[in-house]
C-alpha cells in the first residue's frame, strides 16, 4: 500500500496539487480509485482528497440545474427536482455503491461503467472545473479527449431544464436483473419545437472503446422533422452508421450491432 494521501480543505489548492503531479489522481467517491488501490495499481502514487463537505451542491435556478461533482447517486435519487434522473442513478450499482459513487467519478469511469455520463451527454451538460487552467467545457469536448483532463477537478455539472420530461429517455440493457453491467446504454433527448424535432441527441454507452458516443447519422435523420413512426423507422435503420462497436466479455460487436436498433426504437417510441 505505497500510496500517499494528500488531504485538502481548499479546492484550488487541491486542483493545483493534482495538476502539478502526473502520478496523482483525484478521489471523489472511491468506487473507481479504491479498486485500483486494492489491485496495487502502479499508475499513480498520490491520491488527492478534498474535504467531504465540498462539491455537494444541488441548485435549481429557473431553467438551469447545477449539480456538484461530489453529489452521490443516492442524493440524486432522493432529490425532489431530479425525478427525471432517478432511474439513471438507480441503474448504477446497488444501494451501497450508490451511497459512494459520485457524478464526477462517473464522468471518468471506463467501459462498461459510466452510464450516467450518457444521460448527461443527452442533456447537453457543461462541466465546470476548479483552478486557473480550465474553466468549463461541454461534455462532448470533454469526452473526445477525456484522458487529457484527468489532472483537473470537475466542480459541477450544469444543464438546462427539460421543457417536456418525455423528451428524455434512458435505457440500460443488462443480462441480469435487477442490477447488471451494461451491454449497451441508450440515452435520447428529442427536444421539440411544436411538432418539429430540434437538435436531437442519441447517445450510446459501452458501445465503442470510448464511452459515451453520439449517433450522428440517426440525429441527422431526426433533425427538423415531424415526429412520426415512419420517421423513427427510418432513423433506426441508420443506427450505428460509421460507428465501430466493441467486443468484450459481455457481448460481441455483432450482438451489439444486432440489438441496438431494437432498443433504440423502443427508446424513441416512448415519446
Amino acid at each position: 500500500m505505497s500510496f500517499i494521501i494528500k488531504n485538502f480543505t481548499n479546492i484550488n489548492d487541491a486542483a493545483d496539487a493534482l495538476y502539478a503531479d502526473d502520478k496523482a489522481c483525484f478521489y471523489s467517491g472511491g468506487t473507481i480509485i479504491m479498486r485500483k488501490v486494492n489491485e496495487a495499481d502502479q499508475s499513480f502514487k498520490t491520491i488527492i482528497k478534498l474535504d467531504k463537505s465540498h462539491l455537494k451542491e444541488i441548485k435549481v435556478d429557473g431553467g438551469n440545474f447545477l449539480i456538484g461533482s461530489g453529489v452521490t447517486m443516492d442524493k440524486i435519487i432522493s432529490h425532489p427536482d431530479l425525478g427525471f434522473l432517478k432511474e439513471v442513478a438507480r441503474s448504477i450499482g446497488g444501494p451501497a455503491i450508490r451511497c459512494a459513487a459520485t457524478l464526477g467519478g462517473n464522468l471518468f469511469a471506463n467501459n462498461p461503467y459510466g452510464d450516467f455520463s450518457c444521460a448527461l451527454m443527452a442533456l447537453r451538460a457543461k462541466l465546470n472545473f476548479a483552478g486557473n487552467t480550465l474553466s468549463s467545457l461541454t461534455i462532448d469536448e470533454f469526452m473526445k479527449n477525456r484522458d487529457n483532463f484527468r489532472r483537473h477537478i470537475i466542480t459541477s455539472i450544469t444543464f438546462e431544464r427539460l421543457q417536456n420530461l418525455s423528451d428524455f429517455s434512458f435505457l440500460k440493457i443488462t443480462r441480469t436483473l435487477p442490477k447488471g453491467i451494461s451491454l449497451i446504454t441508450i440515452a435520447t433527448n428529442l427536444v421539440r419545437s411544436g411538432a418539429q424535432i430540434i437538435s436531437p441527441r442519441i447517445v450510446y454507452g459501452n458501445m465503442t472503446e470510448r464511452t459515451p458516443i453520439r449517433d450522428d447519422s440517426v440525429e441527422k435523420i431526426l433533425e427538423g422533422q415531424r415526429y412520426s413512426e415512419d420517421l423513427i423507422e427510418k432513423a433506426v435503420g441508420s443506427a450505428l452508421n460509421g460507428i465501430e462497436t466493441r467486443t468484450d466479455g459481455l457481448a460481441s460487436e455483432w450482438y451489439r450491432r444486432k440489438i441496438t436498433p431494437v432498443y433504440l426504437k423502443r427508446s424513441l417510441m416512448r415519446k
Partner: protein
Amino acid sequence: MTKKAVHFKHNNKDKSAFVDDGQNLLDFLRRDLGDLTVKYGCGQGTCGACTILINGNPCISCLTLAEDINEQNVETIAGLNNNGNLHPLQKAFMDNFAAQCGYCTTGMIMSAKALLNKNPRPSKEEIIDAISGNICRCTGYEAIINAIMDVSNKNNV
C-alpha cells in the same frame, strides 16, 4: 508510511486507532480491530460481502478508505446481537434457511438492516433492490428475500 489517527464508533463503542495511507476499511476492521465478521470477497465492490453501515447507510468497506471513518459511526454484524440474543434479521435468516455457505450472509443482513432502518415495511421490489449489490451463489435469493419479508411483516408501522 504515514499513519493517521481516527476516532470513531465501532458497534456503539468509542474507538481510536491509527490507519495507514491507502488502507481500506475492510482491511482495517479485520486486521487492526479483529472484527472478522466483515468478509473479504472480491475487493472490487462487486459482491457486497464486505457491506457494513456507516451512519446507518450501507457501505462497501473494501472501497472505502479507512481514514474516512473519522468521527463516524461504523456498524458491523458483530454489533447486532444483544447479550447473546439474535437480532430479528439473524433469526429470520436462520428460520428461513437463508444461509447455506454463509459467506454472503453478513453483508446481506447489513444491507437488509440499512433498508429496514429507513423503511420498516418495504415491498418485495424494495427488498430486491436493497440486496441487489450483494451476490449469493447458494440460495437463489428467494429464501433471503423471504427472511427479510418476515422481519418486515413483524414490524409495527
